């Protein structure tokens, strides 16, 4: 009962101003934590999708689910962790490349993670790595040994496997 679990919620909301604030203040007002958050329009312009990663014991997760559902602008809430789903996140990593040898090493390492080079300057390089949490953590740890200058993550996006409903 008290075991903390990580959950990914997909929250479909009306695409209006103020909706994100309602979702977020639901967490801040109750002292629940948001580990990652991604918001964007869907193929239907009137609907936005919020992908939200949070953690807590079963009771807290249930509360979060119910409170999200209670918001008037929320169309649908899905706890993706309850079923099989796919998840992805993109990270952009800027690494220092002081000399040619280090640059070669970094490029080789990037290969291992199927990272793409999206910018290169004499003293730095920007890599894009896509994957699930484990892969991104591993990539970040390795590149950290070369010295990460800057890092930006999109936050997780996810969806259920197979046809819905």
């Amino acid at each position, binding site marked *: 009962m008290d075991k903390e679990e990580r959950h990914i919620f997909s929250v479909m909301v009306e695409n209006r101003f103020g909706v994100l*604030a309602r979702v977020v203040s639901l967490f801040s007002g109750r002292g629940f934590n948001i580990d990652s958050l991604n918001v964007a329009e869907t193929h239907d312009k009137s609907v936005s999708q919020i992908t939200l990663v949070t953690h807590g014991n079963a*009771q807290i997760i249930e509360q979060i689910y119910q409170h999200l559902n*209670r918001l008037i602008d929320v*169309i649908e809430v899905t706890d993706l962790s309850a079923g099989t789903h796919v998840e992805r996140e993109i990270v952009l990593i800027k690494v220092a490349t002081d000399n040619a040898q280090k640059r070669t090493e970094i490029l080789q390492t990037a290969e291992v993670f199927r990272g793409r080079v999206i910018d290169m300057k004499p003293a730095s390089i920007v890599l894009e790595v896509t994957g699930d949490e484990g892969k991104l953590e591993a990539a970040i740890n390795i590149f950290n040994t070369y010295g990460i200058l800057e890092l930006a993550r999109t936050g997780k996006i996810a969806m259920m496997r197979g046809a819905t409903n």
Partner: protein
Amino acid sequence: MELSGAQILVDSLKREGVEYIFGVNGGAAMPIFDALYDENDVKLIPMRHEQGASHAADGYARATGKVGVALATSGPGATNLVTGIATAYMDSIPMVAITGQVFTDFIGSDAFQECDVIGVTRPICKHSYLIKNCEEVADVVAEAFHIASTGKQGPVIIDIAKDAQRNKTTFKYPETVDIRSYKPQVNGDPTQIAKAAALIKEAKKPMLYAGGGVVLAEASEELQELTLKTQIPITVTLMGLGAFPETHPLAMEMPGMHGSCCANYAFTDADLIIAIGARFDDRVTGDLSKFAPNAKKIHIDIDASCIGKNVQVDVPIVGDAKNVLTELNKLVDTADIDPWRDQIQEWKQKYPFEYEQKGNKVMPQYVIEKIYEHYSDAIVVADVGQHQMWAAQYFKFTKPRKWLNSGGLGTMGFSLPAAIGAQLGCPDETVVNINGDGSYIMTIQELVPAITMKLPLKIFIINNMYLGMVRQWQELFHSKRYSAVDYHDNPDFALLAQAFGATGLRVEHPEDVEPALLKAKGINDGPVVIDFIVDEEENVFPMVPAGKGLGDVIRGLS
């Protein structure tokens, strides 16, 4: 024909059947007040403080079941409404609060009297709208009333920019409201209801535990049917008083911190609790780890997020209490639980609410008993503190919507303005306001509109010259260190009432209590204020100290 946004707002309110709108004027709301100036159907009630306006709208809603409407200007007008909005939110009262906002182009510029009302009220309302275009007004009003009055009811804010009030467009009111993201679940799941009926059948020590949700859902009749059909003992919370007649032999009176020993012992001993529109509030359960240790729990509530929040529930049923009880009633029979009923009767007889007459003092409980004797049919609006608890204990409520109080937020100052709203909503009823000396002075200015409108309010102050409830805790848990609770510097409330233009009486002796109450009965051309000078250090018992289990209730008298 094109109408201004303000006129459309007023016409929309008319379409919603609004009778009264309680407000205080100001710059950013002037077009709306102007539109109300020669309006006969929607009557504008000017209050003396916006907090009073929101409590009056709330009191109107509690007494009538209809949506209450409050109106204020931007900035300080809006922030003054906040306490009343939060009060309504905590007790799920349907309300629409309208605030003027600065011109659209000024929003976000720290303009004069600008305040992000939507931001400030986000956690204390069911929903909110910022209107920047007059074209949105009609649709927003229709949605706001729909949301406020359906599902789990609550306050909705409409913040409307001044240019949206002034600009003109054609008025077309939507015939129906359909919000794709808002579909409250009103019917309970039949399998769950069947499970509940099965548990009820098996139980040897079942009890019904009904709350304010029963009143809000207009489900008192169905609750009575369930109780009478099963003959299961029932406790009704502070918020639900009157949902089941307290005078009935099966009634255990209210549970919780200052509730009856009988109800609290019953919780501790029960093997099944059937909660209906009640939320296992901490003031009811006491220490959760000791709460109803042997009981299975059925929880019927309109709000799924309320179920399982405080206690683990065996049979959750999400739905409107009226619908769910109607279905449940078809599946239940008289419970075979005589020994349990006998036990309840024994506790009831042994531990009634009781107090000791101290010398020749006016005992506060005695005043309430006498009020009950002479005003048993009245709508009683209580404030917050000891007097509220004594009123709940010693007045016996037999019908819903006769007992109004701020149970969830516990807002001092609620009662006088709420009584004004209740009296306007129910002109043929007697409205009794049971107030505390501390609470009364928090919104005393609302005596002015009550007098202007000649409302025959009976305002009874239980004056102990203290913030009594806090003093009681200081006496019991802070070694009598009476920090900031001594109100011996109170003004003479009878004289003050006279200065306002009301009838003011002062009662200092027990033998004067009844004559004063009778005199008040005869004065119906305006409010009567009776200042009952009561025993100063009387405490409210029984009492379950904070953090203790219900079984550890201090009974008070031996």
